[in-house]
């Protein structure tokens, strides 16, 4: 994915832009040379062909290079484009420039063979591929250099061509011999290239074929024409026929970069489709996970709301049945005491004592109720003091270890407190334990709470509402609560509460 995202203003981008400017300049110079040539027939056609193919290769090459910097295809395409302009040099009336053109004229075909054999990965694989490409470069570079000093353009059928400035006179036989060797090597190289491309196409999957077909069809046509051209000469065909095939071959080569561009675009489209189907699959999975999560959240939210109502009902009952009843009884005691104040001071004094005792009991009850709703010591002093107080009140000896010294977010402290409170209540009620321990610790941005006892175990976390409510409370903070309670093996309640909410 990242390789497909064009990087902005990178050094590569700037270098490629410079190459593009260079290609434009070379293209204009080439056209000038061709149009001013006095030994080139149909100059306009030749110039257009050179320009279309040269710029086509450079343009598609730079684009491919930019989009897939790791793939050599772009570099090779660009190289084909630049070397393509050697053809224009051969139209020059200047002998030196003409000679340079003659040296380089066949190079783009070797690079093209390299490109097509390595397409689309950009890498050569196996000995056959490497041998074919090495052969192509040998013919177009080494043998070309060897051939140049012995060639006489006029003898090659070029009327009006400049003189060969480095010609060793009277050695046309050597030139012919080198030319024969070139042809002898070029024929199997081109044939092998066509075979390799054909086999690749045969073996490729339908989606790969979408990428390969335009490239391979055009490439195969171009090389088939080149092949015909190569065998025409030894077969003694007429110059006119050779020329016609040559123009057709060049035209086919000129189409090649656009076929490659089409292949590249199709390959992008193919990639998009693969990406889209992968994304769709991932999306579906995420959606179903999300749906499950939403369902879970809806259920836990409902339970939290229900737990809230249940808690309010409990507070309401405690207030009505406890404090309010006591206050009503108190009012009656006081009224009774007042009515008997004069007649029966003894009884009224007893009633007043009762009322005072009742009052003390009422305040104690209210204090406990308030603590159950929210322990003030927790907000005032934090977890350590609050858990210490819980441990002090537990009828089972409790050891508290690892309380964080610093204050944590209020919601985290509160959740941890109520986890410990509920767990210790359960220890006292059901566990028949000798001792219990409360352990706290920080791990990866979360508070870990563990309450363990050495009691009878066998607690079912789904049975009671207490632990379920706690699990929801912890889950609401993005944490989780687990209960381990093998029969006879004690009970461990563990909670993990993220500190960042």
């Amino acid at each position: 994915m990242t390789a497909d995202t064009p990087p902005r203003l990178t050094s590569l981008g700037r270098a490629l832009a410079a190459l593009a400017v260079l290609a434009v300049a070379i293209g204009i110079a080439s056209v000038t040379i061709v149009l001013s040539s006095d030994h080139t027939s149909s100059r306009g056609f030749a110039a257009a062909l050179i320009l279309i193919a040269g710029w086509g290769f450079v343009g598609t090459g730079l684009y491919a290079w930019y989009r897939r910097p790791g793939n050599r295809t772009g570099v090779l395409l660009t190289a084909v484009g630049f070397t393509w302009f050697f053809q224009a040099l051969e139209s020059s009336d200047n002998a030196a420039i003409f000679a340079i053109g003659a040296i380089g004229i066949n190079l783009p075909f070797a690079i093209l063979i390299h490109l097509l054999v390595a397409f689309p990965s950009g890498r050569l694989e196996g000995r056959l591929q490497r041998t074919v490409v090495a052969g192509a470069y040998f013919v177009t570079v080494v043998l070309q250099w060897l051939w140049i000093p012995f060639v006489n353009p006029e003898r090659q059928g070029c009327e009006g061509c400049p003189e060969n400035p480095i010609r060793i006179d009277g050695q046309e036989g050597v030139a012919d011999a080198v030319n024969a060797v070139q042809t002898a090597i070029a024929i199997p190289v081109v044939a092998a290239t066509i075979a390799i491309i054909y086999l690749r196409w045969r073996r490729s999957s339908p989606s790969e074929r979408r990428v390969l077909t335009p490239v391979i069809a055009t490439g195969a046509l171009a090389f088939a024409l080149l092949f015909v051209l190569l065998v025409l000469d030894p077969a003694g065909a007429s110059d006119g026929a050779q020329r016609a095939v040559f123009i057709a071959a060049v035209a086919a080569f000129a189409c090649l970069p656009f076929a490659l561009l089409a292949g590249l675009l199709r390959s992008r489209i193919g990639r998009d489709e693969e990406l889209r189907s992968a994304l769709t699959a991932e999306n579906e999975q995420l959606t179903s996970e999300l749906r499950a999560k939403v369902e879970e959240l809806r259920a836990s939210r409902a339970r939290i709301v229900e737990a809230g109502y249940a808690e309010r009902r409990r507070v309401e009952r405690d207030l009505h049945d406890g404090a309010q009843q006591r206050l009503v009884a108190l009012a009656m005691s006081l009224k009774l005491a007042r009515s008997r104040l004069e007649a029966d001071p003894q009884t009224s004094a007893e009633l007043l004592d009762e009322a005072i005792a009742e009052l003390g009991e009422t305040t104690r009850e209210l204090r406990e109720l308030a603590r159950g709703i929210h322990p003030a010591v927790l907000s005032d002093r934090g977890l350590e003091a609050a858990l210490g107080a819980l441990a002090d009140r537990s009828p089972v000896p409790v050891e508290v270890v690892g309380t964080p010294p610093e204050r944590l977010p209020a919601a985290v402290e509160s959740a941890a407190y109520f986890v410990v409170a509920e767990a210790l209540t359960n220890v006292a009620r059901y566990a028949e334990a000798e001792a219990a321990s409360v352990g706290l610790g920080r791990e990866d941005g979360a508070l870990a709470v563990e309450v363990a006892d050495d009691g009878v175990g066998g607690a079912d976390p789904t049975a009671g509402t207490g632990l379920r409510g706690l699990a929801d409370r912890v889950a609401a903070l993005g944490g989780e609560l687990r209960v381990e309670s093998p029969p006879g093996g004690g009970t461990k309640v563990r909670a993990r509460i993220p500190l960042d909410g």
Partner: protein
Amino acid sequence: MRVVLADDSTLLREGVARLLEAAGLEVVGQAGDAEDLLRKVRAHKPDVAVVDVRMPPTHTDEGLRAARQIRDELPDVSVLVLSQYVEVAYARDLLAESAEGLGYLLKDRVTDVDAFAEAVRRVGEGGTALDPEVVSQLLGRRRREDPLDELTGREREVLGLMAEGRSNAAIAAQLVVTERAVEKHVTGIFAKLGLTAGGETHRRVLAVLRYLDQTP
């Protein structure tokens, strides 16, 4: 004995003032928040300041903080902190250095007028008053291999009253025994728990509390 009162509830403050005056104490100033309290304490230099824990602006533990400040600034002024709830943690904080001239009681205790006035007097004279609720939390704490199990029932009662800050005479009066009997119990308790402490009541309180608080 001169008293400054601080409570943000006017009703309660007036009530407590009336109770204390009926018990023969002189209420020289009343404050509705911690700042006002500090101002009045500095101005009147009372024997004792009776302070509610929760006061404006945060209604958490302003009273405790004011108490600490008074003790730092004016060591001669005793402080009695009243609270709707009592916790060992607060007692531990308050008694960190000394138990002299310090009290920490549940607010409910004001209804037992005589005991409350007695506690105010005791604290005002440099003694200690620790709420029975705190003491019972400390005594009730379950320990493995509890050394307190070795104490007799009467010794436990005496230990509790000692922790509240009562003198031997007060303990004797409460339990309806002679002061000598109390002294004997105290010696026995100290021996069993391996404690050593001087005669002064407030030092004894600290020794007992430290012992109870630190034994796991």
